[in-house]
């Protein structure tokens, strides 16, 4: 890759501390997630696929899928990212 293709990485600003209200909201959201997992044992679900029988399958799938998606997208960025005016220079 030639030098002109190197993306201009900018470092994000330092993270501000998390406000208290947000901390509590996140805690509440985590509790909701935990309750949803618990509900899995209580609600009888009509299943079509063997995987659906696993306890908390959808929750775990959602979490892992998103982490995998973001990590893969970050790797893709190394390959695909170009400066903002990449095409404009060529036009």
């Amino acid at each position, binding site marked *: 890759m030639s030098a002109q293709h190197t993306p201009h990485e900018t470092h994000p600003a330092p993270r501000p501390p998390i406000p208290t209200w947000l901390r509590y909201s996140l805690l509440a959201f985590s509790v909701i997630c935990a309750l949803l997992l618990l509900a899995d044992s209580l609600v009888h679900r009509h299943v079509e*696929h063997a995987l659906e029988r696993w306890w908390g399958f*959808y929750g775990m*799938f*959602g979490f892992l899928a998103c982490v995998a*998606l973001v990590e893969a*997208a970050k790797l893709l960025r190394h390959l695909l990212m170009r400066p*903002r005016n990449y095409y404009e220079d060529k036009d």
Partner: protein
Amino acid sequence: MPPWLCFYGAALLLAVAPKRLQGTILVATPLLSAALFLTGTYAEGMTLQIAGRSLVLCQVDALSKPFLLIFHFAALLGAVFALHLRDRLQHGAALFYIGSALGALLAGDLISLLLFWELMAFSSAILVWAGRGKQNLRTALRYLVLQLISGQLLLAGTVLLIQQGTGTGLNPPPPDSPAYWLLLAAFGLKCAFPPTHNWLTEAYPSATPTGTVFLSAFTTKVAVYALARFFTGEELLIYIGALMACFPIFYAVIENDLRRVLCYSMINQLGFMVCGLGVGTALAVNGAVAHACNDIVFKSLLFMSMGAVLHVTGIIEGSRLGGLYRKMPRTAALCIIGAASISAFPLFSGFVSKSLIMSALLMEGHHTIWLVMLFASAGVFHHAGIKIPYFAFFAHDAGLKAHEAPRNMLIAMTLAAAFCILIGCFPSLLYAQLPHEFSYSAYDAGHVLAQLQLLCFSALAFIWLNLSGRYPPELPSVNLDMEWFYRSLGANTWRRACTTAARMAHIWNTRCNHFKPLLREAEQSLLERPGLSQAANSGLLVYCLLTLLTLLLLYGYAL
């Protein structure tokens, strides 16, 4: 009067009407046309005799009816959203474009479909160009080239069908005939099948805030309708659909232009529809049609909210936006409703249609594809459900000067949001309009719990990634996609070819004084020849395609 004629008439009227009446015409047209359609006074079975062929220009059946209804609603949303604008060209092009899209739905034979298909391409290209910048022109011409290629494929397929004596009725072409693949390619190109999808991700984000709302609603959904009409049950569509649902979400995560993120998420949603059509059972086709109807509205809502942000701040890059919820609280709330709908949250519209496709996949035993689509469902929540509202309205406060969106924009967004919630809460309203009779309950405890788990844990993943600093920051950049082949590789090759030709001309020129003036001119023009992606060359390509189109058309009639 057929609905398309209503819109064409209004477009002509708009060209001569005084400025203050433009808004009235824009909003009254979809209302009038919808009234005509709902009361059944729309000239059903209208035909036109041309060159010994009869073109069926207005024919409604169970498949086209839901599309027709939702197209009218989308037209109304777009019209109200654009009400503040005084731009004869943009409004006229929009009305003409909607008319053509309706015409394509109403066409009762392939030649009429082709006619409206091409008119749709031209009128939408004007909408892409409506920003009137140099860059808009280039983008619009590149867009038009691809749309015209789709038209030519359709024309070539039609000509072959006539030659085979199959006729031009709206029946699926004989499988494995060249016409079959030509038609599939024509519809696929318009439906943004990879690797041809970049016309969508390039053109829509460069259109005006109001133009994108119109553009997002019609072209791709007409293609979905055409696929449903001709290729229901084609197994290949399942795999294409799965690919479409999956690959754009990676791009959406790292894309900075938020309207482009929506374009990638649009391809992702089209993937669900295409997959449903590939499965081909009554449940799956209903799912695909229902999802197309819902997608038109929630995607319009999301494009409208981003359009409102762009209109107010002049910025659409995630890296420069943030913290707007204080200044645009209503737009933020409406955007979140759109985000919840596209993510298929229970009680929002996406849930009641996506479930149909997912259930159909499981019932027909496509388990691997079902897992892939589940991944895509989690992904769409991640980028369209969370990323769009988060980076535009929350995240860090970018300190932008902003105010709430204009009233007409808020009304349009509210109408769309109301539709999303209404259909989400009362899915039977939508189910009653679908082409096949069926019974399905989206709201059983199992479905709801599964979806809530999937979405809440996806959100948890986003929170965790964000707090731990693992989430990739929004960076001002472009990401290479298939367009690189024609915007970079093609342009460079063309430029090199021109330089070489110029050099050769120069050598020849120095040796042969006789042709000197002529060759110097040629050399000069080759050196000045812009890259492939420049307006002049794209324009040339458009002319070539048009000529080819005319020749094919003449050939078709000569048969």
